[in-house]
């Protein structure tokens, strides 16, 4: 799977599961401020990425940089594939 497709799938996930009307979700939109705003959303996102992309995520992967925006998150997923 290529990175642009990963970005598209992640974008669709956030817009469906954690909708934020009025905010256009771009690759550089701050996810932590607008979408992944609590620990439940962190783990739900992790579970989605694991099942949807077939990757394995560990606790050590959780960090500000990884979840900062779609760009970083898709980079992370791509590196795990």
């Amino acid at each position: 799977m290529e990175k642009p497709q990963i970005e598209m799938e992640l974008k669709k996930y956030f817009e469906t599961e954690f909708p934020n009307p009025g905010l256009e979700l771009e690759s550089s939109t701050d996810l932590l401020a607008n979408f992944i705003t609590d620990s439940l959303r962190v783990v739900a996102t992790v579970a989605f990425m694991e099942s949807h992309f077939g990757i394995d995520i560990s606790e050590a992967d959780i960090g500000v940089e990884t979840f900062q925006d779609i760009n970083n998150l898709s980079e992370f997923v791509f590196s795990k594939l």
Partner: protein
Amino acid sequence: MIGLGFQKPISDKEREKNNQNRHGFVLATLAVLGIFIYLFTEIYHPLGIISPKDFANNFGFTLKHVFDSDENVDCEIYISNTSLFSNDQERLILFLGSAIAFLLAYYLPFKLKRAALTFSFLTIVIILYGIRPIAGLLGSHIIVYLILHPLNLNRKFLAWLPGSFIYLTFSEPSSLIPAVIFNTVFFGYLSFFCYWFILRNLLDKDKFHRVTGTIAVQSAGIITLLGSSIEGLGGSEWKLPLGILLFFFHWRRLFIYHMDFKSGRIPKDLTLLSYLSIFFSPGQIANWSWGSSIGQGYSYTNDRFYNKDKNQLVLDGLKLLGWSIFYLAIGDWIKYNLIYYARHEMGIPVFWRLRELSCHFIDGGQAPVLTIWFSCLFDQIKWFLLMTGVLHFKVGIWKICGYDIEPNMNRPWLATNLANLWGRITLHYRDFLIRCFYYPVFFRFFKKNLYLRLFAAIMASAGFGNLFWGNIIRRWIGRGLEWRYAIGLLKTWPHFVTLGFGIWVSAVWQLIKKDKTRKPWTLDRKLPLDLISMYITLQYYSLTHVFFYTCSRGTVWDFWRLFFAGFGINLDP
């Protein structure tokens, strides 16, 4: 906000930009602290001014359950575990000390601010507790520091300090001064010898370093478990010096510090002063054991210092301090009036304390559903108000001193589900449980089933971790190393199970509900549902406390019967 450990690091250059002086903010802060002094201490007496009670009476405010016999406002802010001064005198020292600490931190050059806060903290607590307890606190922290951050040649004199300080904390107050001086030097040398010639070489070995680091950080849990177990097996109770107990209350913050350390977020050559500045801040002095997770870890505390304009931080702090005054003053008054209204206007018998309800029920007394609901709810409301008052004070002091610490209590009455409520009433402690239990379990077990995975993680944190690490160890530190305290708290397991279960149900609902767009408290036709959800959330949470505040002659089954009686289900034999 996904977890308090998730911070963007900030550079010193950015911090300098946030260091612009505006004297109006300083005057406002001193005025607010002056109000604290006037309302909550006896300062009116030596100053010859009108007492707070008479002042209120002049405006027609004759409120019960607000003023105490000293004619100042009754207050839950106190200094734990010491009686060198009266409560009012302790508060005066604390408020004055906080004001001085604030002024130093505000006006000193940036590189001296945190040192000033550390020394202010030490000065205040030495006055309040005396030298021996603070020597124990310092010595214990220095031991942890020396293990995690092994010394280089330039700082080897630090290895003297633990031995000297720990001796001082264990020494008898009646010891002769020459003996104290001799032993301080002797144990200091012993400590230096052991560290420099033995321990330091061993700490070069990675495995040894990791194991000793873990033992040092978890010493509170290890020693309290060991001491209580020995006492439970018939041994005598270990009486630990106050300084060691004060250090033990920092144990959750040490836990997170250690996690940051293992993640590589802390510089290995961190100075002792920088290490101490993480743990020693004036904001943590009041009610030492309340909100003991506030300011946890290196990453959170360090990256939150001057991360925004300091005057904005002062303003945020003053808002919290203002609310603190409100809640401290009227918490008991609100509960009194709620109970009065229920009893006399609605005709519903309501108990002032949950333990009274528990004993009444166990003794065969009538406990209608509304009695159970309102007794639980009003008791919880009172705790929310009082804890908010104290914890807003603590966080307010952190903020005016330059730390952007988030409030520990955040309007719990706005929660429409239990997961949200749990985050609103104990933010920092919840984050401790998330980092230490929730994430570790979530990332290791039941990876094929999200809901089971969530259940395990929530029960590990809000259930198991909350009971053992949050309550049992805390009870041992606070009340004594006796096995009966563990037994007593183990009997409260249903509180943690029902709490964890409720949080899990809320979390699952958040994930599966269809309407994910609407935010709670939006002014639309679904607003009544928010009100009902809020009530159900608060009521359920309050009801789980029938397992926590129990009658000593009751059994766990009795408390389950009371819990189900709260739902109108009679399980009497």
